[in-house]
């Protein structure tokens, strides 16, 4: 049996084929002293199959808090004693947020709501918001509104939603430890409807929630099977008052192995740094991840927490000679 990195080089870099479950497990088990070699390979895979450009996105919470679901990592669930209060954003503030995002060079602006799925009030607010953004700002609009019906998928597409985010959150085998108010299969169904509609599918998850390495690998191959356009990779930021509030922060070397493993499982997918990277990886790790398979970032703040400043991230991309993908190339 040859070394996993040697086999990955042949299969993924040369052949363009993603690693299998067993192979991803092997990558996640690599010792720390092989991490630089692993990241280098993942970077080569990204450069070969995706190119040097970085896709930049900003996100905004349209409806914060008061969610009926019990996602154990989330401070916006109404079932926990989190200090996050329910609040709605109005349309002028939404447009202002889109303008701030576009000013960073971002091509994607994602409107997010903490809900099980959208009701008519939310769909109406999203419709009005998208119209106002499209009249004022040159940016793709994405949305993340929970589980959808086919009719809602069609409505969002007709509103001009470019990409829809709905994460699997965790591997199928670990999901019942993370969410009990809906099923992993319900999430999968929404993802399939979105993909089949022609909207781009953004689907990822969180790591560092207490899952095993095998379950981390399981998530990677389940995402690969779903074939999303983009995979946002979140690292648990333990939020006060949530069931995962006392989880330890994920080890940074485990986080780097995960980034590279996801890249090797999905060589052509947009792999985005999402929440928690500041806490898990810090400045040095952020740089290593960008040189280890990541080819997209969320800049600025998240939904309820603050991120690195957009200016710092953009300066880092310039230093790494990673050009920001232009809007024309994303359409």
């Amino acid at each position, binding site marked *: 049996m040859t070394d996993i990195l040697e086999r990955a080089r042949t299969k993924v870099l040369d052949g363009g084929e993603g690693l299998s479950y067993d192979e991803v497990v092997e990558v996640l088990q690599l010792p720390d002293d092989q991490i630089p070699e692993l990241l280098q390979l993942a970077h080569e895979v990204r450069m070969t199959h995706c190119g040097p450009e970085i896709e930049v996105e900003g996100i905004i919470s349209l409806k*914060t808090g008061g969610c009926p679901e019990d996602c154990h990592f989330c401070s916006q669930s109404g079932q926990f004693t989190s200090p996050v209060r329910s609040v709605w954003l109005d349309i002028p503030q939404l447009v202002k947020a889109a303008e701030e995002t576009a000013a960073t060079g971002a091509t994607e602006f994602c409107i997010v709501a903490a809900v099980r799925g959208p009701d008519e009030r939310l769909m109406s607010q999203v419709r009005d918001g998208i119209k106002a953004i499209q009249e004022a700002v040159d940016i793709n609009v994405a949305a993340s509104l929970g589980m959808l019906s086919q009719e809602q998928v069609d409505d969002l597409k007709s509103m001009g939603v470019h990409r829809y985010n709905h994460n699997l959150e965790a591997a199928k085998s670990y999901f019942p430890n993370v969410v009990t108010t809906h099923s992993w299969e319900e999430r999968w169904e929404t993802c399939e409807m979105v993909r089949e509609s022609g909207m781009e599918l953004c689907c990822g998850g969180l790591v560092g929630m207490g899952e095993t390495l095998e379950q981390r690998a399981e998530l990677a191959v389940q995402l690969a099977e779903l074939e999303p356009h983009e995979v946002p990779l979140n690292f648990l930021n333990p939020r*006060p008052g949530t069931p995962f509030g006392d989880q330890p922060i994920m080890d940074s070397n485990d986080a780097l192995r995960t980034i590279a493993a996801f890249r090797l499982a999905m060589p052509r997918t947009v792999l985005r740094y999402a929440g928690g990277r*500041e806490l898990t990886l810090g400045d040095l790790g952020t740089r290593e991840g960008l040189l280890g398979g990541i080819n997209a970032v969320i800049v600025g*703040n*998240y939904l309820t927490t603050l991120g690195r400043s957009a200016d710092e991230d953009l300066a880092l991309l310039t230093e790494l000679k990673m050009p920001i993908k232009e809007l024309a190339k994303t359409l």
Partner: protein
Amino acid sequence: MFCGHCGQALDAADHRICERRLLMEPPRFCAQCARRMKVQVHPRGWSAECVEHGVIGD
């Protein structure tokens, strides 16, 4: 005065961990009355509203 992160009185406990966390998240409690605030995070900032003491932001 109260801690924006945990809502406890500033002189009642050690808030050094809270202070570190407030570098990466907005305050959730009003510093004057400890009421939970309505907080909106924006791409480049945040605002927080206390029903009694008004709006603050970065």
